[in-house]
């Protein structure tokens, strides 16, 4: 090809430089343009999850509460409506899943009953353990509006009140454990709060 540049050092150097310069400018600009939407998307994801599991709120206050089972702490979002506490959303987890960790966010009403639960991520088998997701089955509905004080958060096999997903007791157990962790944490905090 006639116009082809020779492969000498200067040519190579400059052409690469020019290309990266242009690429840099464009990428920087695209980044600047998408920064806001990306942040918004991330924020929206969190808010969506919270909207799902918390009763109506107009402001959110994240706090850390000591987990009921471990020395670590859990991230808890307190929802307020007109300054009034409307509920807690607890980011909780269990490592007992079939495929690994199960992360979910569980929302509680002020009286301690479950408002809603949303699975953030999990590695359970599609078609089995993934039935814990709201989008896959209604299994999670059995938790709604139950108060763990009288609804024992254990699968039936282990002597609780939770009906396990068919053939996925392990996943169900993990899910239930995560919810239990959240609930106990809230309850502990309440007690301590009460004591304060």
């Amino acid at each position: 090809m006639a116009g082809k540049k020779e492969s000498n050092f200067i040519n190579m150097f400059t052409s690469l430089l020019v290309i990266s310069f242009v690429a840099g400018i464009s990428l920087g600009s695209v980044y600047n343009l998408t920064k806001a939407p990306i942040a918004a998307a991330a924020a929206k994801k969190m808010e969506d999850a919270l909207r799902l599991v918390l009763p109506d709120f107009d402001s959110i206050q994240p706090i850390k509460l000591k987990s009921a089972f471990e020395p670590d702490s859990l991230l808890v979002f307190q929802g307020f409506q007109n300054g009034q506490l409307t509920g807690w959303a607890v980011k909780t987890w269990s490592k007992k899943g079939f495929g690994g960790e199960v992360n979910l966010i569980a929302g509680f009403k002020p009286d301690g009953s479950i408002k809603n639960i949303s699975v953030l991520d999990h590695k359970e088998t599609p078609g089995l353990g993934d039935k814990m997701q709201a989008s896959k089955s209604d299994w999670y509905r059995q938790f709604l509006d139950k108060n763990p004080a009288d609804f024992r958060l254990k699968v039936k096999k282990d002597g609780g009140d939770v009906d396990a997903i068919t053939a996925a007791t392990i996943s169900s157990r993990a899910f239930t454990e995560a919810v239990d962790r959240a609930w106990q944490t809230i309850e502990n905090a309440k007690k301590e709060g009460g004591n304060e």
Partner: protein
Amino acid sequence: MEYIIIIISAVFVNNIVLAQFLGICPFIGVSNKIPTALGMSGAVLFVITLATIVTWLVQVYVLNPLGIQFLQTIAFILIIAGLVQMVEIILKKLSPGLYSALGVFLPLITTNCAVLGVAILTIQKDFNLIHGVVFAIANSLGFGFALVLFAGIREHIEIMEVPEGMKGVPIALVTAGILALAFMGFSGLV
């Protein structure tokens, strides 16, 4: 213990090829000779580990402080390309004999997907450097393990003459599928 878990996970449970789908091209494209497969695994081990160390340093000491994490893809790929090339030049310059022996012995060694994939995964998983290196090693071992097993099966298949329509890639994929099926037995080990 953590290291062992990382290794078992990467070699058996989440094998880089059979479960994570990285480095499939060399896996199905490359020779059926077992020593060659071993040699390739050695090369991949070095390249992936080296790449992981360098990219980790770049991510933590350049991209993160400057707030330009979004350049990860482009930076990593350029670094990896440069590194591989550099090793090549160095070897050639240092010892033409050694370089020639590698040329005769190994088919292409760069496994782009796997190298870049492991580098990115190391960052995504928030590993510190040493965990990252173990992770890289473990994945290379997983790659080598799958490659060597597959080389054996492939040789068997080649001698047994499969049906015309399935020859080559299709049979390799189906075999890999069955192998992946067998490897599901490892699930839950970690």
